[in-house]
């Protein structure tokens, strides 16, 4: 099997994409779960404010999602663009 320089770079891009998306998904997953957990806990204490709490939860989760989306973008860039 001949390995040219271009092959090596493609291979590194794919490996990089896998690592970026894999590791990048850990934080948002845990973080969003944590936010969701606290929202459930807060609703348990204060069920009348469920609407407000759910809205706050979703805003916080959306922010926490952003790093997952950065990882996705970088992974797609590595696969299709670079």
């Amino acid at each position: 099997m001949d390995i040219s320089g271009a092959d090596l770079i493609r291979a590194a891009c794919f490996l990089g994409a896998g690592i970026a998306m894999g590791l990048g998904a850990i934080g948002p997953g845990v973080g969003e779960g944590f936010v969701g957990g606290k929202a459930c806990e807060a609703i348990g204490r204060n069920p009348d404010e469920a609407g407000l709490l759910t809205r706050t939860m979703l805003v916080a989760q959306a922010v926490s999602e952003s790093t997952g989306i950065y990882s996705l973008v970088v992974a797609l860039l590595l696969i299709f663009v670079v």
Partner: protein
Amino acid sequence: MDAEFIVKAGQYIGAGLCMGFGAIGAAVGEGLTGGWANRSISRRLEMASPFTRTMLVGQAVAETSAIFALMVAVLLLFTDLSGNGICASAAAIGAGLAMGLGAFGSGIGAGYSSLEAIWGASRQPLVGGQMTTTMLVGQAVCQTPAIFALVISFLLIFGNYSGIPAWPYSAALIGAGFAMGFGAIGSGWGGGQAGGAACEGFARQPRLKGALTTLMLVGQAVAQTPAIFALLIALMLIAMGPKEGNLLVSCAMLGAGISIGLGAIGSGMGNGITSESACKAVSRESSVTRPMMTFMLVGQAVGQTPVIFSLMISLMLIFGNYAGPPTLPGAMALLAAGISMGFGAIGPGYGNGITAAKACEALGMQPDKTGLIMRTMLIAQAVAQSTAIYALVIAFVLMFVV
């Protein structure tokens, strides 16, 4: 270089990995137990000797997984595998990874169960004896993943590899070690936390012993699923791993092991903390015993999704068609698919578990708001799932598009 030396080197690396990783979990678990035993004794000085006894029993169980690791390490050091074909080298490294990493979760988990048993006994000294039974049941279940790991290590060490070329079967054997080793961590750890919560709950409400034990065992059984998926993939890689093939096949087998092994960590731990909180909530508000079981199972089922994605990717990698000419980028894409899905499933699996755990606690505080809490839990879990879906998409793109 002679195959003999490569096999010997593999055995020694395997022994080192095995005992090094294998010593972490049990030691931390025993340390936690010892620490809480001290706290409990300072609370009830007159109970020092029964608490010390429970501590030693609990620590002895937590030690089991480290003893398994020691056994495998000694086997690897002194069994002569050098006449058994070149793949014996990879098998020895795989066995070390499987048992070393596989001992981690069960050791810590068993520690959680026994620390709660002693702490609980300091609250309710009269039920100390029955508490030890609950503790031992909880610990026995959380020991299962370590036993799976031991089985895979033995299969790897005592397999017959003569006449098989080094690649791609070596990759399948190391993949099996990764799968079982990492795959055992979450289930062992999570199962132990569930066992601990059952002891804690029992100390609060001794009359709920039956309900708590049932809830604990059902929760632990579900938390055990990721380790069972990992066992399945490890067995498939050992029994059906391809004996011939190109670089693509090697990378696919390694990727399959990484995907399910890492992917099982998050869901195993997440499911464990869900059943932990379910047990705690029931002991604080016994009227929710019945709805709690349903609630816990729904939360755990959603928390299982990331590891099911990982299982899917592993199976696709094992059964893929690799007839085309091998290229380095193609091979790395397959490996990267496994890495993406494996790591990518850790966070969502654990995060879903945190959400479900807190939802169980909330149900205990507001038993009449089941619908509202369930809805919030499912919305939050769906959002936390999104990153696992990104990882799945990237894995698919790497496998089928590029």
